[in-house]
């Protein structure tokens, strides 16, 4: 499995940044050799760790994607096959294009429905309503449920023969919808379940952000006669820019990483193909097509990079400013 680099949230400004002036002028003299060694170690060790546990395996995966290795034996059993894996994936491996479509669909639904809904709920619950703790914890609950349990809960709802949904809709006999088995329907069914979790996650992030908005700003806007909506879009939303970026990145990464729900339902087959599930199905277990699975993982990594690189670029630009 490749590690998709998860973008770090923007670090809070360290130590308030208000260092006494005279010290700054004499800083160089104050740094003893010990300090420098300590500093060097503090930079080198995390860098080394990131290199070893993120970038080396990533590079290994990319290299393996050009082989036909089956996971058995050492390096002497690795045979290079050039771009054969990539050709096979794009030409004679039907699940791949379905998976690409589903990942894009996943991203679209999260971006257009689940994330705005999470923000909306956060704004609603940000007012101190009576019992808002209850609503907050109810909406956040799906996020903390174990996935096997979440999968099981939705199984009870979606099951064709004994499921809640078909009973509530009053469908009988062959009118019943096979929510998880029918490939034209099941991706939407799973997306509802996935959004159910994602909404709670985004809501919590956003609530934390809203807490930090200065009340004076809202009051000033109200004094100027701005409506609630206007206040939110013109004043609150812009001040939440850092959180908005984090939410956006998390939405993208969650969509690319989406795996667990479809795996629990049917191992990511029959209409629920996702890139991550294809990687797992090919590498893990007895199939052990390490080379072929690595090629899919590399494609997934490349797609993730398309989104992550501009984000990192903007972060770095901000820092320089």
């Amino acid at each position, binding site marked *: 499995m490749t590690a998709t680099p998860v973008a770090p949230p923007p670090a809070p400004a360290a130590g308030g940044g208000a260092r006494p002036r005279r010290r700054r002028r004499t800083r160089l003299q104050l740094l003893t050799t010990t300090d420098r060694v300590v500093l060097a170690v503090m930079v080198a060790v995390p860098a080394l760790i990131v290199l070893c546990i993120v970038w080396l395996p990533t590079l290994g995966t990319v290299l393996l994607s050009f082989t036909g290795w089956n996971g058995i034996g050492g390096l002497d059993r690795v045979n290079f096959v050039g771009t054969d894996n990539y050709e096979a994936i794009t030409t*004679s491996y039907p699940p791949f294009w379905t998976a690409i479509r589903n990942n894009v669909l996943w991203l679209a639904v999260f971006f257009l429905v689940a994330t705005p809904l999470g923000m909306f709920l956060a704004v609603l619950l940000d007012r101190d309503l009576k019992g808002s703790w209850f609503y907050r914890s109810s909406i956040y609950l799906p996020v903390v449920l174990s996935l096997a349990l979440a999968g*099981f809960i939705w199984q009870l709802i979606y099951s064709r023969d004994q499921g809640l949904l078909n009973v509530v809709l009053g469908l009988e006999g062959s009118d019943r919808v*096979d*929510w998880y088995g029918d490939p034209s329907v099941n991706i939407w069914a799973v997306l509802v379940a996935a959004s159910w979790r994602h909404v709670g996650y985004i809501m919590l992030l956003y609530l934390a952000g809203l807490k930090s908005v200065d009340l004076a700003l809202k009051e000033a806007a109200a004094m100027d006669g701005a409506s609630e909506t206007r206040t939110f879009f013109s004043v609150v939303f812009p001040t939440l820019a850092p959180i908005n970026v984090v939410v956006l990145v998390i939405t993208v990464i969650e969509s690319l990483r989406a795996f667990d729900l479809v795996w629990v339902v049917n191992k990511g087959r029959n209409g629920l193909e996702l890139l991550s599930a294809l990687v797992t199905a090919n590498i893990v277990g007895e199939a052990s097509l390490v080379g072929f699975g690595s090629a899919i993982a590399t494609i997934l990594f490349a797609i993730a990079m398309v989104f992550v690189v501009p984000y990192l670029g903007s972060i770095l630009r901000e820092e320089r400013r």
Partner: protein
Amino acid sequence: MPTHPRPAALPSRLPDLHALQSAFARRSLLRGAGAVGAVGALSACGSDDAGGGGDGEATTLGSRFGDEVPRAAEDAVIAAFTEASGIEVTPNVQDNETFQESINSYLQGNPDDVFTWFAGFRGRFFDDQGLVGDLTDVWTDIEDGFTPAFKEASSNGDKQILVPVLNYPWAVFYRKSLFEENGYTVPETRDDLIALCEQVQADGLVPFAFGDADGWPAMGTFDILNMRLNGYDFHISLMAGDEDWDGDEVRAVFEEWATLLPFHQEDPVGRTWQDAAASLLQKESAMYILGMFVGEQFPEGEERDDLDFFTFPALDDEIGNGALDAPIDGYMMVADPQDEAAAKDFLRFLGSKEAGELFLAENPNNIAAHLEADTSGYSALQQKAAELIGSAENIAQFLDRDTRPDFASTIVIPALQKFLQDPEDIDGVLTDLQAGKERLFVEEG
């Protein structure tokens, strides 16, 4: 790949993710333990590397029997062996799914001397990779207990690699009481079968229960149709990658299947085999093509005793109905055991009549592989299964054990599910299967 989840305590869709995590967890745990040298704390996770003294004193066993029932049976076998020989056996038990999922890394890491596995291609594959030990000399001592078909299934070329313990047949299961109530008779020919299906439908029931959410149950239907239409030999060479999947023979199988599909429960791909078995239990369906583990879903007593089966009727008189799937479970030895003498003694015992009987004591959905095992404790169903397997002309091991595991899980399952969703598009299904076969069955360097 998840194969027949025998004996399944839970719906097999639940532990998958957990299994995946614990497979990784165990792997890293072992690595960490190796670094710290905390061998004592992990005596259950493989043996320590303090020199493989092959002096026949102790051995270790990697088992996939995490469920209660087979666990108890295996413990009884170990106790009996230790009592008889004085050799200690340290079991290292995982749940079935985890063990199968992580078999590759397990065998290459720090495996136990003896481990649970399957006959057929699925075992030979690991022998070809040089990961399992040669049991030919063990077989010279236990040979008399098994039929030639079992020996063949346990061999790779002329070397034996597996000691068979249990097996069970795939057949058409039905409830005797339902057949009596409605005056149905067991079909002898294809015409009988079609007539019966039409009669069942006229009575407002479903002829065949069917669920393929896990992907493997439909393989049983494919296997039996292929063996009935094209014969056992074609089936096995197709599995071995020596035949084309887009030829007329396989096309005929799918065409026949498309004819029978309207007699099956609708929307099979969203239904687990357990739910399909429930419809047989509740007399909503008349028949079910499945392995004998269908009995797990029937409460012990009256209902389980009501269960009966017949072998799928001949579809071609030339070929007859002498072939069936009857997967064999057994034990293998790793290529480089810590204590080879003890491991082989243990395997000899596992291949004995006593071991076979101990395994069966707790296990009503299997039959013993050993010829001389005492069958007086068998239920009527087990007796019948033993007769069926004993009289079978050819025994296949089930699709996912007769072919490459990667082909079965990443190509066949999606193709069969595609066919079940859209039986009209046989061409597309055959194209997928053939393309996958050409990609995976290449000469390995």
